[in-house]
């Protein structure tokens, strides 16, 4: 019902994906011959990836063929599909793929109960934007009886409110600011583009981690624990560390199901670098069907390889060096957000050109004035909380004393009501 509220017909997609995984995984465990088991797995993966390709990557594929034809002087008339991108398709496809791999590797037994398996695929808090869960973590919890405790509600609500604050106060206000600059890029100079990139970098973090917090919070209220997806990523001191703290469930998915099967860290050095690059290319293309995302993935892949080659991925002990590394890493993260924000390759080139502009300056914030200070206020609160969380465990976000919890909750609720964007912008990661 939750998924159908967006586009009723697309429930069929999730049903097909669920049924395919359920029956094919049961089939492959019933066979002892390796050949048949492998055939079952390949068939399952192919069906899932075909759906993903048709609904997410088909038009991108057509555009690429068209571009190639033009490059070589040929003529190709692209035939576009009119399908809407199903919300969360990348998330639930990767979740079901991990289940298939785990069953194939005999790490878990296939689920017998179709209803419980369907719940694993379409569990509403994390269906549309993660965290990407493993069956060994989530599915097993559905089999246990949950005894309701008021503390579950309390802890879940605090986390949910914090996520909502990040989304409504920080992300949505900064979005208006950043969009205003990016939509009028022709009139901006390098300074304002970089300012907008900074705003966008915070926006995307507050938006995505806000959603994850809300998903974890809602789930906690029902007695189900979801995986932590962010660990204050902007405090990272290298790009490698950033990917261990940003969208953790995707990073670990790619590590376990792509990087390690390709040879992991035990292969020859050039193979490790090749594998790392492939993993980051995949991470880029997972995010969006456009060359801008491929570029983003490739740039991050190259940066991680460079860090490995020079040993820069290790955390220094000297605090000054540590601080400089943090500053350098954060600056790179901001700059590499350019392809993520660009609408297409042409827009990326345009924005890149404007960064070098120094003369025309018309940073007209006009109607964005109303969102500037609330956005910065939210950013300061977010920074302080992240700082606190970085110093302790993330679970310490539920503060110990009840009076602190009470005052914090009142403060957050009033801030959301007063400063949150009432227009309720869609989550950025819904497009993935």
């Amino acid at each position, binding site marked *: 019902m939750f998924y159908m509220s967006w586009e009723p017909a697309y429930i069929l997609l999730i049903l097909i994906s669920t049924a395919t995984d359920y029956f094919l995984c049961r089939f492959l465990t019933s066979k002892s011959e390796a050949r048949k088991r492998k055939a079952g797995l390949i068939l399952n993966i192919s069906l899932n990836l075909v759906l993903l390709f048709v609904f997410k990557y088909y038009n991108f594929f057509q555009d690429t063929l068209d571009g190639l034809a033009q490059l070589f002087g040929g003529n190709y008339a692209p035939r576009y599909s009119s399908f809407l991108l199903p919300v969360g398709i990348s998330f639930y496809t990767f979740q079901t793929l991990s289940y298939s791999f785990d069953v194939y590797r005999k790490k878990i037994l296939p689920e017998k109960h179709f209803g419980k398996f369907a719940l694993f695929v379409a569990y509403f808090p994390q269906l549309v934007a993660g965290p990407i869960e493993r069956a060994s973590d989530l599915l097993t919890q559905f089999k246990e009886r949950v005894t309701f405790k008021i503390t579950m509600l309390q802890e879940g609500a605090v986390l949910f409110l914090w996520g909502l604050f990040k989304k409504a106060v920080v992300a949505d206000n900064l979005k208006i600011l950043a969009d205003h600059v990016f939509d009028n890029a022709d*009139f901006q100079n390098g300074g304002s583009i970089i300012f907008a990139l900074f705003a966008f970098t915070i926006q995307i973090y507050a938006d995505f981690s806000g959603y994850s917090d809300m998903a974890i919070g809602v789930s906690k209220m029902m007695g189900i624990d979801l995986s932590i997806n962010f660990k204050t990523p902007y405090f990272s001191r290298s790009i490698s560390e950033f990917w261990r703290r940003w969208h953790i469930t995707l990073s670990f998915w790619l590590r376990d199901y792509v990087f390690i099967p390709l040879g992991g860290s035990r292969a020859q050095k050039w193979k490790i670098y090749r594998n790392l690059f492939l993993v980051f290319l995949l991470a880029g293309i997972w995010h969006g069907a456009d060359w801008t995302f491929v570029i983003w993935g490739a740039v991050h892949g190259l940066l991680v390889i460079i860090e490995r080659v020079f040993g820069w991925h290790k955390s220094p002990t000297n605090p000054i060096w540590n601080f400089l590394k943090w500053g350098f890493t954060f600056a790179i993260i901001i700059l590499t957000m350019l392809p993520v924000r660009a609408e297409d390759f042409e827009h990326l080139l345009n924005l890149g050109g404007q960064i070098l502009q120094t003369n025309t300056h018309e940073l007209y914030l006009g109607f964005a004035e109303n969102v500037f200070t609330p956005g910065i206020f939210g950013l300061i609160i977010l920074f302080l909380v992240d700082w606190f969380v970085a110093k302790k465990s993330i679970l310490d976000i539920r503060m110990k004393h009840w009076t602190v919890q*009470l005052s914090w909750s009142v403060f957050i609720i009033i801030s959301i*009501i007063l*400063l949150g964007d009432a227009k309720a912008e869609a989550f950025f990661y819904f497009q993935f």
Partner: protein
Amino acid sequence: MTAKKRTYRILLFLVILIMADKGLGWYLESLYKQNRCDFSNGKLNVYLDKKPPDTLFVGSSRVLHMIKPEILGANTELLAHQHKHIYHNAALIDILRMKKKLPKKVLVLHIELEDLYMRTEPMLLDQLYSLKYYYHQNPLVKRLIDKQGYQEPIKFLSSVYRFNGDGWKLLSYPITNNCKEVSKDGYEALFPSENDLKRLEKSLVDDFEPMQLDKINPEFEKLIQQVQKTCSSNGIELIVLRGPYYKLHPELNHATSLMQEIAVRNHIQFVNVPRVEVSGLEKKEFWYDNMHLNDNGASLYSKHLKSIFYLP
């Protein structure tokens, strides 16, 4: 922890939350009423302080930056806001009625043709958020905001929510004293700049993407009728105006005749001013972008309006 203690804490939380909401709501309301700066409806407050003019223009940025009251006549004013179209402006006129501040003789309501279609309704509803303060006072504001969805009345259970979006400026103004004054007659010039031509060329591309205009929004005519009723019962002449574009989106050609039909059906004066009617406006130098004239263009347009309106 005992159940009694837990219940006590939950009750305490609710009491503190309600007290914080009511207390802050009361304080923000007092700041809102005092505000005479160009934010949080300070412009409306300034207008409500004064005696109503003979002629009032209500509309969007295409009134705010394009019509110069000083050219039109001594007792002419604008009450125009950026990005505010028919829903907002009809509600604003109803607030003026409620406050007994309608113009004495003529009300000119500027409209945007795309507002005739259902496709623009979500945007029109969003624009009403700046009138949230009047939610509990004006039935039309309430009805239109409630169209957003079932959750709207719930949001207004909070006193603070009426100031959502404006709250920070209201709270910070007593400290920063940062106040952009409201212009006396409501006009705000877009002075010609070297970027005008570049901006016009860009908007001639950006504004011409397919609009995919769909079915007619019946609310548009209903609101025009309501404004007409308000005017006739207060002895005011209503003129519905549509200003020029440098180049009209081809999908809006049909909308002009639809608007003419609405005007005839409801016995309303509809004045359509295409660019070609105003001599000089064919030159790009008079335009800020495709939809707005710069200050020099506004002078030409205002002179033209004076020649056709015969305002008091």
